[in-house]
């Protein structure tokens, strides 16, 4: 079904607009201290100032680079580890307590030990982002890879495909929808971890700016940076959705067919 552009915009951003309006009214009503809770319009003005500053844009890109770079490595590592672990039930069982233990560690918790290991620099931020993002990708990938469709495998074997070909031509494509669920969760965690690491241990990036603005009581700037983090999340999700549509459009159409059936 095609909707008009207006109805699309209303459905996509209507909720945000109502939220912003309530915020504006509450902030201006005098019920709260405007110093700590500035109106949305004032935050938007601050955002406009930030985005015109080259230094801010540098910091924005720095954070994006750390999140995306770490995410990319986490995707490769998570899927690679899953391919190895999917071959052996024993290995999966042995890895599983480690995974459950490590995946609940909040990114800031591993900052100190990571500083000892990597010092302060790109390696540190990448490590923390990878650490945060890799687990959901691994877990989804290994679950999907370890539970292939037996009829698909039997068919491929009868056609003369070997184990490696079956992995790359049958099991991996079949697992992609579930892997993408992991990547989507991982992408949010990657951004979260990048900002958190920057708050604790960086002088650049949105996290560092946010920390600085917050504790120097530049409240409008602080909110403005928080909004930029939020917008980054929306853009990152859109990026993942685009790649997903490109790689597993068949699955999206198949799922949509189920919804309308």
């Amino acid at each position: 079904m095609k909707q008009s552009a207006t109805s699309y915009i209303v459905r996509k951003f209507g909720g945000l607009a109502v939220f912003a309006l309530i915020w504006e009214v509450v902030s201006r009503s005098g019920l709260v201290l405007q110093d700590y809770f500035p109106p949305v319009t004032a935050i938007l003005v601050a955002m406009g100032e930030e985005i015109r500053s080259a230094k801010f844009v540098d910091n924005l890109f720095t954070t994006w680079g750390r999140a995306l770079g770490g995410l990319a490595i986490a995707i490769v590592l998570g899927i690679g580890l899953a391919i190895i672990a999917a071959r052996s039930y024993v290995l999966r069982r042995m890895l599983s307590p480690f995974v459950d233990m490590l995946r609940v560690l909040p990114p800031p918790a591993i900052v100190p030990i990571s500083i000892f290991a990597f010092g302060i620099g790109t390696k540190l931020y990448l490590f923390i982002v990878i650490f945060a993002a890799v687990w959901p990708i691994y877990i989804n990938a290994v679950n999907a890879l370890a539970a292939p469709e037996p009829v698909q495998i039997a068919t491929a074997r009868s056609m003369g495909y070997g184990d490696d070909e079956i992995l790359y031509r049958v099991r991996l494509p079949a697992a992609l929808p579930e892997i993408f669920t992991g990547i989507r969760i991982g992408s949010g965690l990657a951004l979260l971890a990048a900002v958190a690491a920057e708050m604790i241990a960086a002088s650049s990036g949105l996290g560092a700016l946010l920390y600085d603005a917050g504790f120097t009581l530049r409240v409008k700037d602080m909110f403005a940076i928080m909004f930029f983090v939020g917008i980054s999340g929306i853009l990152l999700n859109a990026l993942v959705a685009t790649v997903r549509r490109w790689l597993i459009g068949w699955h999206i159409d198949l799922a949509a067919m189920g919804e309308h059936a």
Partner: protein
Amino acid sequence: MTSILSAHGVGKSFGSHAIIRDLTFNAREGEFISVAGPSGCGKTTLLMCIAGLLKLDVGSVEFQGQKISEPPPGLAVVFQDYSRSLLPWKSNMENVVFGMKRLENLSAKEKHERGAEILSSVGLRGFEKHYPWQVSGGMQQRVAIARALAANSKLLLLDEPLAAVDAQTRADMQDLLLELAAKYKQTCLLVTHDVDEAVYLADRVIVLSNRPTHVIEEIEVPLKSPRDQIATRSDPIFLDLRARILSRIKSLKGPGGNADMPH
């Protein structure tokens, strides 16, 4: 006619469950064989063993004079569950081309030409670019059959290929199978729980016992070809064979109880 497939003294167990014991039969080149037997008697296991997908415990299966130990070239399998055997991320054409793994001397273009020809002969011209899940169940099974033929096989193993399609489609597909078997010179081994279908399609029906299963009777089907859904099914020979096989299967007391009921 020369023998293309021979199973000799085949035995297979899963743990302490004996599924097949001392099963022996031959298939002649170009023959259409139906394998009928009570539910759960191990027909599918037998097919997997013949396909080289399961290892035998004892005995041997020879295909074109070679002992089978892994899936051999020249042998293709069509499973009952087409929705799970077709690859949903590939179009119908790509699924058929996927079946041409062993035709290494063909270029991609030649594979697509061959795919188009085979899809057209199973009645799917114009559906090459559709995904399997965009077409009906009967059409999906046609894609799976086309994919099996695409491998340029000699022997087609059919594991209840029509059990999941509706009755009308089923009759059409039975005739299509006979037509394709003749056109592509296939030897067919069809596993079915439907005795009518077994007799209608076959040159010979092999009746299996309960588990551990073995051949209890081989019945030649002297019905004339081409078969016809109305004439053949009302032929006294058909009715006689059908009754004979049904009562033979029914007489087997087994774990399944209702021996002629689909599982």
